[in-house]
């Protein structure tokens, strides 16, 4: 009988290496060996993705490996999710995320959402091509702590500005933290629009969000 520990360590490494099929196989094996689903997620899968995020931030790996690892993680999560108990624990905060009006890109946004959820945040995904109004409505409705705006094309600049201004001028403007992300934006531009922070990619996005809320 193979060691559960070995299987779980193998699973963690498989996610980091982006070996999706191996990771899925090891997830099944771990479950069959009696591992606790929540433990698999909290102690092996999340740390795996955090490790990937850290390496990405350190520029040791790049977008392709990040995406492949994220996909592997997603595939394993899909296996485990039905077995997880309902979430009752404290959430670190509520984050509303969406791709700005006119932009259909969502890989970066989806990575951020995955990392945030696994870090203990409540995340509302507004999807892509989201008008400014919608960001404001949702932020108000769920009493958001942070609003994340993703933009991957330079043609999105005016809509990023419009969205940030609409949020600031609304009744939630004083309370929420606004972060903008995406390779086409710059820190200077984003701050000048009135946002609190900028992140060039998903991993640093999560770090910045935690910073903005004064968390670890």
């Amino acid at each position, binding site marked *: 009988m193979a060691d559960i520990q070995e299987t779980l360590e193998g699973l963690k490494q498989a996610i980091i290496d982006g070996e999706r099929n191996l990771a899925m196989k090891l997830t099944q094996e771990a479950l069959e060996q009696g591992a606790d689903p929540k433990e698999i997620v909290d102690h092996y899968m999340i740390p795996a993705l955090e490790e990937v995020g850290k390496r990405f931030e350190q520029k040791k790996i790049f977008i*392709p490996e990040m995406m492949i690892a994220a996909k592997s993680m997603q595939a394993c999560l899909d296996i485990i999710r039905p077995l997880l108990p309902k979430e009752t624990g404290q959430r670190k905060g509520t984050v509303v995320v969406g791709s700005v009006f006119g932009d259909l890109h969502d890989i970066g946004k989806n990575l951020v959402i995955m990392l945030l959820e696994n870090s203990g945040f409540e995340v509302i995904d507004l999807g892509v091509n989201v008008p400014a109004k919608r960001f404001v409505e949702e932020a108000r409705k769920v009493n958001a702590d942070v609003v994340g705006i993703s933009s991957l094309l*330079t043609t999105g600049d005016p809509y990023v500005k419009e969205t940030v201004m609409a949020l600031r001028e609304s009744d939630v403007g004083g309370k929420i933290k606004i972060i903008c992300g995406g390779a086409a934006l710059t820190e200077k531009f984003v701050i000048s629009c009135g946002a609190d922070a900028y992140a060039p990619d998903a991993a640093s996005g999560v770090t910045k969000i935690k910073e903005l809320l004064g968390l670890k």
Partner: protein
Amino acid sequence: MSEGMPFKVRFLPDGKEILSFAPKTAFELSMEASVKLGSNCGGRGKCGQCRIIIKEPKGVSNVSKLEEQFLGPLKDKSYRLACQTIVNGDTNIFIPKETNECDFQIKKETKFKIKCLPCISTFELKIDSTCMDDLLSKEDILKKCLETRSKHAHLPIELLKKMPPLFEIKDNIVSAIIRRDGKILDFSKNKIEHAYGIAFDIGTTTVGAYLWEIKEGRFITSLGALNPQRSYGQDVISRISYSIESPEGLSILRNSILNTMNHMIERLCAKERISKDMIFEAVVVGNTVMHHIFLGLPLKDISVAPYRPVVAKGLDLPAVSLGLSLADTGYVILPPPKAGFLGPDTLAAVIGTGIHKKDKYVLLMDLGTNAEIVLGNKSKILCTSAAASPAFEAAHIGCGMAALPGAIERVQVGYKGKQLGIKTVGDQAPKGICGSGVISLLAGLLREGCLTKTGRLSNRLSKERLMETYKGLGYVLAQGKETATGSEIVITEKDIAELQVAKAAIRAGIQILWERLGLPTVEEIIITGAFGSSLEPDDLVEIGLIPPAITGKIRVIENAAGIGASMVLVNWRKRKEIFHVISQMEYIDLAQQHEFKDLFVEALAFGRY
């Protein structure tokens, strides 16, 4: 230097001077002074190409961190980046040779085997007394005389402006040029021997012009030039941004391409000793953004999803209304775009390669600055644009350039990644690497086991080829002493990651089109675009751009769009076919296909699969 006092900036070696009243970047000042400065990102600080030399930095800002990163050791030789240098006092700015771009080069002779069915014909007409009704206008009289020749004869106003008085041509024989639709293009007292036309392909990076004799249908010569809009952005997205951000942006972009096209016409006329007044038709194709800019159509609609073009039908407009220097009576034919990111150039490429008439399936890829994919045959044609997916704006690699002189177009990789040789366009000293060069490099490294499937440089690589840069680990293509710029040409792991993203989008696009058509056998694969002609077909399979199952014969055609545009110019059947072909083509928006994301991630890996 007190506020508001003007200062003088002189650009060398030209000697152009400009007076400025406020601090501006050297880049902005160069544009104001109409001094040509090479740039790939339009002054956004992303490409490092706008290198200048300032020997006395008294009136300029200090070297920024960004400049240090891009310039490296060059900053000690007084080099600066024009877009990052703020000028606030009298300054001399020297533009080094490699930053100064020469615009025109003659393309190598393109051999055309196009069946010509001329769209114009000449005939002789006698205006005799029987037509000369006292109560009729000149135009009516001419029309009456032309009735026997063509019921739909139309005399454009430009023609009427320059026609000699009726009493001078009465009872004489005049020659005329008539289009199939009845428009009269010219009247002459002399016999009309020749008439000319030009097919233009406005690419994002290069512009091609093909001069034809259109009375008989004979190819004469071609000419290539760089698209000057590159100063405002390397890719279509940054040019769209430019047109939106600045109130005159669109007209600046439009004027710059018109000037280039008119210069090309001048050059062609001088070379062939003809007058522009003998050029009666032009066919203009390009991607949808180039098409819109040429026409002066606004780009805001196209800039956001669903990327809607303003116009999607073919146009036939008087040259004078567009500012293109043809004969005053000349016309410009503009085939339609299919979608926001699938333009008239792709339609022209389909016509040029004849996919719409073939029994066998053909895969056509235009891998120029953008990436269009077409798969089909006479029954059905699917098309898509990989650039309009997450790969958009991703393929900006540091040392990348179009297939112009100095571009490395082929690399032979030896054991442990050591190089056996590089081949550059024009055999000039290397300046950068173009598409075909990149593909041959990656394929070579993969075969030698020096590149992993995830895109990392492996430790099998010989140390002499490795270099740590501020962007990470890189493979040295050429040492500083071998290059045109003096700095080494390095491709980093980060660059390779960007290429993986572009490759994955194209591969996923090919797979989706192929699956939609039921996985047919593809007999022929055609690659076109300013890609570099030294493309080895197996390299495309080695890096995983094309699935091995699509093993048709692979060939590279230098400009399928130019061929198609030429066909539209000299073959009236092809002109009619435009409407049928565009209706036959079905555009697939990759971003909306739910399987695209998974296929995309899977296609990130290098290798044969």
